[in-house]
């Protein structure tokens, strides 16, 4: 496989708090240093990491890729889900009026900020936009922190289904008559009194208005979701699951590996991050403590390796004495992972 088709997109998924953004950034540094023009797309970096990547600027807040200081060929983009959603609506609305109908809708306002799956879906939209520019040989996509790594995989389809269901139910015709009363409608007979006395009709009005307004955008919306789905399934795309060496994370990692396999997507490796090093000798309380931690971590890693029985490489990423503070250190953390990912990432 040529360098241009292999290793074009790496999606780093995993629960919050395990060091995903650090791993994604480190791999992106290595990729750029190997000579490939690389973009890392990130969501919620710490202040220190944001400064390191050069995304703590006004330009970055506008979601434009910025050059990463000290790493020629590496660019970083920060994604803000709500701004992305607004831009998608703005760019794909048939006219200004249609655009405003959506953007000003209260139900849209609530959905765009909190509906489960929206953040993940916007990650996918932004990926699609940036990939289509063809400016980068390689893209590393960091994903929003999720309770469960599976959320990223299923979110786009969930959002598409939610919207298409909504359009089918609420936008098929006008549910309110000329006097503002709710007709039979999507909720059936008898609904008006029930709805009015509990949550109120304003909500229903907002909902029907939103789905009507969104309707002209839907086909394009669905096409892009399909296109990204196809992009994720291409031979040059792969997933990296970042996780922690604690007992609770093992079954979750297994579920994720199975889900990817079911969807025909490639899990390149599982990076178990921040594994404690075992001391080489017996000492006092400090070393005993470290030894117990190293044993716990080792048990979790071994358990994962055994369950996977070779179907996917498990890379133990050693914990460093302190958090990486520069691109060199970031690259250093991801050495073992890069080796497993293969040529182009080292």
């Amino acid at each position, binding site marked *: 496989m040529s360098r241009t088709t292999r290793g074009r997109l790496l999606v780093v998924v995993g*629960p*919050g*708090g*395990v060091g995903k953004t650090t791993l994604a950034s480190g791999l992106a540094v290595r990729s750029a240093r190997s000579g490939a023009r690389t973009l890392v797309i990130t969501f919620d970096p*710490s*202040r220190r990491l944001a400064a390191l990547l050069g995304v703590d600027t006004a330009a970055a807040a506008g979601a434009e890729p910025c050059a990463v200081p000290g790493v020629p060929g590496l660019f970083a983009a920060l994604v803000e889900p709500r701004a992305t959603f607004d831009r998608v609506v703005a760019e794909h609305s048939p006219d200004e009026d249609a655009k405003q109908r959506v953007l000003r809708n*209260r*139900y849209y*306002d*609530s959905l765009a900020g*909190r*509906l489960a799956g929206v953040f993940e879906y916007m990650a996918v939209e932004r990926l699609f936009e940036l990939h289509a520019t063809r400016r980068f040989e390689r893209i590393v996509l960091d994903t929003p*922190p*999720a*309770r469960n790594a599976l959320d990223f995989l299923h979110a786009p389809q969930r959002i598409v289904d*939610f919207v298409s*269901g*909504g359009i089918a*139910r*609420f936008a098929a015709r006008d549910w309110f008559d000329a006097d503002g009363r709710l007709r039979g409608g999507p*909720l*059936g*007979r*008898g*609904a008006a*009194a*029930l709805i*009015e*006395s*509990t*949550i*109120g*009709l*304003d*909500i*229903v009005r907002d*909902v029907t208005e939103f789905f009507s307004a969104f309707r002209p955008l839907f086909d394009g919306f669905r096409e892009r979701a399909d296109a990204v789905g196809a992009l994720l399934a291409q031979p040059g795309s792969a997933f990296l699951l970042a996780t*922690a060496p604690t*007992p*609770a994370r093992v079954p979750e990692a297994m579920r994720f590996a199975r889900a990817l396999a079911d969807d025909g997507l490639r899990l390149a490796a599982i990076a178990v991050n921040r594994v404690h*090093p*075992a*001391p*080489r*000798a017996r*000492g*006092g*309380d*400090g*070393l005993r*403590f*470290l030894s*117990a*931690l190293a044993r*716990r971590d080792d*048990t979790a890693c071994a358990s994962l390796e055994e369950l996977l029985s070779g179907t996917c490489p498990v890379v133990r990423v050693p*914990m460093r*004495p*302190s*958090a990486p503070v520069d691109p060199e250190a970031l690259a250093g953390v991801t050495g073992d992972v890069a080796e497993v990912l293969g040529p182009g990432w080292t």
Partner: protein
Amino acid sequence: MTSRRQDRHDPAGDAGAAVRGLGERSLVVVLGKGGTGRSTLSAVLARSLAESGRDVTLIDPDPRESLHRFLGVAPSGGEPVPAGPRVTLQLADPVQIVTGLVTRHVPVGLIARRIVRSNAFRQIVDGAPGLAELALLARACGEDGTSPRGTVLLDAPATGHALALLDAPRLVAETIADGPIRALAARVASVVADPERTAFVVVAAPEELPVDETLELLGGLEERALPRPALVVVNGLYPEAAAEDHDADPDAARFVAARHASSARHAARLAASWQGELIRLPLVPADDEPALVAALGRHVRDAGR
């Protein structure tokens, strides 16, 4: 000023009293991002209150249920289930709760039931600002018709901002018309804002991003005139490296020393900005969740002495 494992910023109080005081509230909300040990702490506090003689209901807001593992019992599947002496575990499903709320307030009939079970209704509930979060809080306050036993401990959702949970009653009041649900939002808002009835516990990891976020959260709570957290727990500190350690394996000892210094530094940064009760908990290398909960429970008990 400091003594062993507790910080005394308020000479009149102490962390142990803060923990015991949680049992005097009807609601304790445990806040903290994913990866900080919030769920672990929720289970620890539940056990701790139960041991001091208080009945506790622990609420799991995650549809994929995970708190049961920390208590060493089978998943609750939605019904309240016993999870050890004086502890009841319950999963809270917002849509189910909202359905209950709606059907409680109107004559229950086939039509009403059909409406609330429809996908269309569900779609409205999914998007209605704050409704799902309000449902969770309503269950936690016992305002949804259920009568939870004893003190309710709500393990706040991991993702999204804790403040979104707490802003829900206000959001609902702004977007939902006058009626039983709006009235419920007002009642829930008053329970949550009352320091006699509700206590907040904030959990943080001694690392850069978690401490940044915790400081933001503390500021956000203050802006909203919500009760000041009864307790902040910094979870996961490394011990110091002893002389013996440096003699035996200098590299490993330096590693421990560096992690100790880093975790201590981040904890200190949080303690410096937080003028209230704070407990530092060590990292505990346990093989399973119940063992971890038991070990941390011992540390929390000791923090009170």
